[in-house]
């Protein structure tokens, strides 16, 4: 398993983006390799023959029309669904037979298209739940409130505040997560995912429901997160400005099939992609 990076406060490491989707990450081993991945729902081939290699510090986009199978790919990667066909290697390790929780511990964290927060709990608790495996004191330490409990709870509080500061959300720490505005809930989901110390962050439509200025800020923050944490990011998004603006590699899905892979310029000029989005020209 990958050695866990330690998050250093305020340390921003700019990363030259050398790795993009078409297998160009030559000097380092890829973080994610999917080969011939597929799943059927009854007769429907929701995803078929999905191949993807993702560099360690790459920002990749997964796009496609509604119902193309994008969310299903995320659900396969995180084992919400067990794939019908194909293999997924995370950091070189096979993920076959793992549970969603084990996948997270192996290094994949995600957000959800339809927000899934712990809505009755506070913002801070949501992040602390993300830190669950980062503060591993036992149940008895917690009940007896041994020194280790106080130490790790203090560390968790500080870390949660630090993570919330990425999106300037420290002031919201005591608020009920479910009562936050929509955009803030999406940002909180990202913070919670980051708290699990992932090597690959999956964002399912992170800009959905955000206004243009929020989206612009989000774009900057996604790049900042990649640079600070030195992780790979894969995102599903319908906002093409965001995708074309920050994704170094883009993969296009249609009816469960990959129809194109490449850089933003390559994708924008690809006739198959244009056809999938706009319909066939007469």
């Amino acid at each position: 398993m990958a050695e866990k990076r330690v998050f250093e406060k305020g340390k921003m490491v700019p990363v030259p983006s050398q790795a993009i989707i078409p297998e160009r990450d030559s000097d380092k081993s890829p973080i994610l390799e999917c080969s011939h991945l597929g799943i059927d729902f009854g007769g429907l081939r929701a995803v078929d023959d999905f191949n993807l290699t993702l560099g360690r510090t790459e920002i990749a986009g997964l796009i496609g029309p509604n119902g193309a199978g994008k969310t299903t790919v995320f659900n396969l990667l995180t084992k919400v669904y067990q794939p019908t066909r194909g293999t997924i290697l995370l950091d070189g390790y096979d993920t076959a037979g793992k549970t969603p929780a084990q996948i997270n511990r192996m290094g994949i964290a995600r957000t959800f298209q339809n927000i899934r927060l712990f809505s009755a709990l506070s913002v801070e608790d949501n992040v602390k739940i993300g830190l669950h495996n980062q503060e591993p004191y036992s149940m008895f330490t917690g009940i007896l409130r041994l020194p280790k409990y106080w130490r790790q709870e203090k560390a968790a509080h500080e870390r949660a505040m630090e993570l919330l500061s990425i999106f300037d959300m420290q002031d919201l720490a005591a608020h009920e997560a479910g009562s936050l505005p929509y955009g803030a809930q999406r940002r909180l989901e990202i913070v919670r995912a980051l708290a699990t110390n992932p090597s690959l962050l999956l964002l399912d439509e992170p800009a959905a429901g955000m206004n243009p200025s929020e989206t612009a800020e989000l774009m900057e923050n996604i790049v900042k997160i990649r640079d600070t944490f030195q992780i790979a990011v894969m995102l599903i998004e319908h906002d093409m400005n965001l995708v074309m603006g920050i994704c170094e590699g883009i993969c296009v899905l249609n009816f469960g099939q990959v129809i194109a892979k490449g850089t933003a310029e390559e994708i924008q000029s690809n006739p198959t992609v244009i056809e999938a989005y706009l319909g066939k020209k007469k």
Partner: protein
Amino acid sequence: MKKLKTTTKIDFATYAGVTLAFLLVYALQQGGSLTNAMKSWLVPICSFIVMAVSLNLVVGISGELSLGHAGFMSVGAFSGIVTAMSLTNAIPSGPVRLLLAILVGAVFAAVTGVIVGVPVLRLRGDYLAIVTLAFGQIIKDLINCLIVGYDSHGLHIIFNLDGLRSVSDLHMEETGVAIIKGAQGAVGVPKLSSFFAGYLLVMVALVIVLNLVRSRTGRAIMAIRDNRIAAESVGINVTKYRLIAFVTSAALAGAAGALFGLNYGGLLSSRFDFNTSILVLVYVVLGGLGNIWGSVIAATVLYILPEALRGFQDYRMLLYAVVLILVMLATNNEQLKALLGRLIPKRKGAKSNG
């Protein structure tokens, strides 16, 4: 946006409130201003507070429905009684035997909790209600078949499955003492429980549940309640934490059972039937799901109410049924909830404040 209250103050108020109430009642008891009937309520109230607080851990904090909580109380009561009685000669001190009985009751109930919980809690979906319902019935019938006695050779236990056997089949020495006589229940039980012991057990249960809820473990349990898929996505082992909540709750119910059982000269297993489970569930629902101090107050008030209205006893279960239906309507109806929220603003967010 809604700001949540700090939990430390709520916890402190809970401990302080329980302690003050204990001191007050203790003073009244010493001053002789309590009737005998009132004195007889004190230990059961403590037992049922522990029952309600522990059930709240499953129903309120973990968000699962358990309909057999009295079954764990039963396991704790009878294993506690056997422990206390069989150690009569070895350990003369009553309080020490009571302590041991409570510990043994908790351990036996916890083991039972594992046996019931492991197969069910691995499954997705709400199968716990139906399984715990069956468990409550089964444990009652099992204890009805149990014949236990002790002599200088130790414990003698037989299962009276065919209904033909009696204490004489234990083949004890002349000096042997019967503890559990099948359908006649436990007999000749020493009254070791006291109000002070009950108060201590309530405090211990409160510390365990409140500290658990405010820890990493409790957050994981509540995360699973609020959104199972999201909880898995942040690396939480769902089965493990559902089980922790369920088994901890069972252990506390076992402790409450031992305290309860050692408060009477005899005890029938039918005392811990489905009605008792529902009674405790009513305490939890009325006190507020996830609201621990609410469970303490609801258990106290709702225990005293029917006792004080002995004359209406025939209508007692009817009353509970009506109240339960009303509460279920209230908690499932968004408009009613909103209305309640406006009338009693403090109750907002009670679920998470606990």
